[in-house]
């Protein structure tokens, strides 16, 4: 069986003061190989926790994670991760960053160089190969992060607000790049974002999560990602279904945020 299966996942953080936070409660989700799932939700609803569990950085309190037929028991190169920012190794050049995964595995230099060269071409950074990563702009750095993740040829790519720190224009270009890479590589991708538009444009499937306890509130299947692979994303946004969907989800999250604010007021 290929794909990622998340079964009845719960995560509870016990705080030092005796309190606890139910970050995730009974979350179940099945992803087929090659699906692109975007995850939305107000902050604090457990998105990062979910991703960290899938990545293997956290062990869930209960529940089961199965990838391609085997249990997930910790971090592994089969699940790559792209962080918001600052996760590149600034002591390495662009080339060394991208080649990090293959180097760790001991891939022969010729093969590694080929992979790195190919990926730098894909993300358009061939000219910056020998530059230090801190010499690049934010958008370029995220392209390096994508290439670094792809160099390991993972089955699943996990992205935690990878484009969150970029300006609007760069962000749009990067969204197209993510779609292109998804189509070309056929990877399973989970993408967390704060932007409803981004979630709609990139997510073949989209889940909206709700907080306290963190759970899946609603799930959608969307046509926009497929449309966006060959078209300008601005054209996709003009699709008759796009506007209404965006409004619907915005309202949903808005309501949840209101509830959180109201809740804290009650508590105070």
């Amino acid at each position, binding site marked *: 069986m290929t794909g990622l299966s998340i079964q009845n996942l719960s995560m509870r953080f016990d705080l030092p003061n005796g309190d606890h936070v139910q970050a995730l409660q009974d979350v179940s989700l099945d992803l087929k190989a090659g699906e692109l799932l975007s995850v939305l939700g107000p902050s604090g609803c457990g998105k990062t926790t979910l991703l960290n569990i899938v990545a293997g*950085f956290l062990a869930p309190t209960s529940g089961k994670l199965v990838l391609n037929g085997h249990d997930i028991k910790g971090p592994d190169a089969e699940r790559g991760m792209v962080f918001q920012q*600052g996760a590149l190794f600034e002591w390495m050049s662009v080339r060394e960053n991208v080649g*990090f*995964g293959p180097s*760790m*595995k001991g891939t022969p230099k010729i093969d590694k160089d080929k992979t790195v060269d190919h990926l730098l071409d894909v993300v358009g950074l061939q000219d910056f190969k020998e530059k*230090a990563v801190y010499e690049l702009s934010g958008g370029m750095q995220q392209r390096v992060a994508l290439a670094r993740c792809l160099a390991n040829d993972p089955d699943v790519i996990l992205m935690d607000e990878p484009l969150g720190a970029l300006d609007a224009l760069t962000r749009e270009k990067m969204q197209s790049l993510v779609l292109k890479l998804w189509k070309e590589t056929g990877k399973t991708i989970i993408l967390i974002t704060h932007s409803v538009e981004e979630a709609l444009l990139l997510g073949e499937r989209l889940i909206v999560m709700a907080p306290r306890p963190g759970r899946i509130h609603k799930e959608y299947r969307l046509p926009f990602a497929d449309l966006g692979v060959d078209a300008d994303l601005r054209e996709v946004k003009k699709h008759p279904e796009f506007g209404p969907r965006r409004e619907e989800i915005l309202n949903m999250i808005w309501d949840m945020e209101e509830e959180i604010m109201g809740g804290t007021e009650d508590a105070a």
Partner: protein
Amino acid sequence: MIPLLIYIAIFVAAFFLVTKVVQGAGLKDYTSLKTVTFGDESAVRPNRAAGVISILTIFLMWGIFTGSSLLPSFLHAPGPFEGTATFTYTAQVEGQAPDDATVTVVVHPREQETEAPQVEPGDGFAKNDSAAIAQWRTGLINVARNDEISKSDGNQVIAINGQKIAPGESVEVEGGVVTLSDKGTPNFQPTRGWQMEPLYLPAPEAVWVRSIEIAKEGFRNFTLLEHLGYSLFRVVVGFLLGALVGIPLGYAMGLSDWFRGWFDPIVEFMRPVPPLALIPLVIIWAGIGEAGKIILLFLAALWIMAIAARSGVSGVKISKVHAAYSLGASKWQIMRYVIVPNSLPEIFTGARVAMGVCWGTVVAAELVAAEQGAGMMIMTASKFQNTDIVIMGIILIGVIGFGIDMLMRWAERLLVPWKGKG
């Protein structure tokens, strides 16, 4: 007071001359167009001209107040009197008319032995006297000694140059001041001028000449290079040992809660203890030889390096570690390729601080007790009042300390160019 006023005057004059007349005449740069300059680093950068003038001013002041031969003499502050001065004294004995006699004083440089000149005795019961007094010194002139009537028979000095004088009072005369001592003997103090006595502050060229001499002939059985080399050697060995132990200790403290718990109290206690405070204990335990000095510098460097390495490890962004894990790195690989390089900038900062502290500590330790070294050199020189060697030593110590820091900065730029870029 006067040197301070001259210094302030040069500061102000240079400021107006350079910023308003010379630089102000040229094009305004971008910085001068800024209205907000507080907290903007680019707005306040050192003015190069000010730096150069500042250094020149120090040497200028030095030259002015030491009568340096490097400066034209009209720039010198008034120097001490040198040459022959005369004054008269009036002696009185009960029941006799007062009688005048002349005193001739030769004021000579200190290093030049001079005999008091021969003078004619003159008439009357008071006879003419002479004396030789070195510059910066004073001399009692027992004028009654050669008089016909001695002091014990009631011979008293009542006036100098015709001015009445009583014990404890002074009269200004050519080339100095005459003060009558409590016992009634004139005391001549040659005019000192505004210059510093070479014993306290030698002229720059004198320091230079002495430096060359010491460099050629050595000082106390060791050449200048050996003295400085010993100090540097102690610093380098002490620092390296400190780093060799401190860095792994810091890593262990950053990675293991047991090590952290065990060593935290020790490190946190030792950190605020100035290494200088350890000198007495180290001398008791290890004596004044090399071992004691190196132990001291080892201790000075150890805590600094341990703390630097610890914060370098703890300071790693968790997302970098996570990224490395999900790229398939093992624990050891993460240690080698993430934790260590990530901690290097902190370690370099620590190393710079440690080298500075070690350099200061070694000089202090050598001041206390050593057979050779920069600190021993200036301490011994000061005991023999060789101010020129002391000043030379201080300058060399400063230059070497500065050089060490420059070297560390250069190495830092070369080896950890990513510092502060994460």
